[in-house]
């Protein structure tokens, strides 16, 4: 039964052209929500469409030369219509409630200490990111420190910042598999939108704000990062970064090899 159901889901996944999903935990609820709503939409559409076509056929002027002033008078049919409206209301509102349960799943940020925390900063027209380094703490920061070579607005005097691993205008951003990734997204110039289609994650990057979003990659690989908000004439070229999902070991190795803000190589969180 459940297997049949998941086949069914998969069928709709393909029918709707939903892209590959590489983050089961946070992405599946999104996909399912989209699929459920489309069931509702398809059902409503087909129901009404059949009725519509029937009307056009049954009540065209040739077949029915004399119209009935009030239309459906028989109580039966108006009951049916009222029933349909009530059902529609019910589905719209009733379906909404369980769907929210899922929606809040998607937005509830997991614990930071069980996750990989990264800062992401958009700029025209590239992405920057920053890892907290060995101590697991980011250096203090404030928008007032933002300059062209300090996209994160890091306080230059804060010792916590020395072991941070910044990657400016990155081509690749590495994360470990099967562990939540929390991205604090912001921007230093205009509004961008940090989107990884395969992870079903999107968050607008708004200057002056640092907003968390999360995903949990469930497959290693190389995934496209996009900018989904118009940000100027290079908007379309800003879909040029990638998330590389590594195994934990590969990730640790990679991080250890990265230069830190204070000079020297980085290191894993542990």
């Amino acid at each position, binding site marked *: 039964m459940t297997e049949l159901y998941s086949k069914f889901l998969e069928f709709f996944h393909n029918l709707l052209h939903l892209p590959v999903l590489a983050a089961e935990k946070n992405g599946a609820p999104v996909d399912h929500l989209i699929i459920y709503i489309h069931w509702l939409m398809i059902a409503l559409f087909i129901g009404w469409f059949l009725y519509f076509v029937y009307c056009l056929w049954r009540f065209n002027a040739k077949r029915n030369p004399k119209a009935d002033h009030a239309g459906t008078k028989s109580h039966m049919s108006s009951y049916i219509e009222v029933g349909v409206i009530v059902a529609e209301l019910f589905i719209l509102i009733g379906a909404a409630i369980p769907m929210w349960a899922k929606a809040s799943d998607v937005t509830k940020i997991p614990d930071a200490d069980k996750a990989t925390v990264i800062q992401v900063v958009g700029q025209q027209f590239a992405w920057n990111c920053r890892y907290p380094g060995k101590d697991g703490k980011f250096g203090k920061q404030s928008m*007032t420190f933002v300059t062209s070579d300090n996209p994160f607005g890091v306080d230059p005097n804060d010792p916590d910042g020395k072991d941070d691993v910044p990657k400016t205008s990155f081509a690749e951003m590495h994360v470990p598999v099967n562990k939540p990734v929390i991205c604090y997204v912001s921007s230093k110039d205009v509004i961008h939108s940090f989107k990884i289609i395969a992870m079903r994650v999107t968050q607008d990057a708004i200057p002056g704000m640092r907003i968390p979003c999360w995903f949990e990659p469930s497959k290693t690989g190389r995934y496209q990062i996009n900018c989904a908000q118009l940000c100027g004439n290079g908007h379309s070229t800003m879909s040029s970064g990638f998330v590389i999902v590594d195994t934990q070991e590969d990730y640790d190795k990679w991080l250890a090899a990265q230069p830190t803000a204070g000079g020297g190589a980085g290191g894993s969180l542990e």
Partner: protein
Amino acid sequence: MSDHSHSTEAHKHSPQEVSKHVKIYIGVFLALLVGTVVTVGLNAVHFDSIKLTVAIALFVAVIKASLVACYFMHLISEKKMIYVILGFTAFFFVGLMFITLSAYADLPANTVTH
């Protein structure tokens, strides 16, 4: 045209009525001046709580505004249609102010501004 017009005579008030109104206008005028002085005076006091200061200042302003609206603009004895229009407006005005502000107050957990 005939149909609507005969029922309404000129829209004038009697002199007694008007002189009564004039008294009210003068009264409101004085009240507004007093209100202004009160607002300025309160400001000199410097309450410790900024919230209290704001609340009092706005309270006085609301009273003054209602006086103007009710008496100078005759809202106190206006026709229903005007109330309906203003009712809509009030609804949307409150929506605009209240929802926008609450949107700012409710950000995702751990969001940092500035």
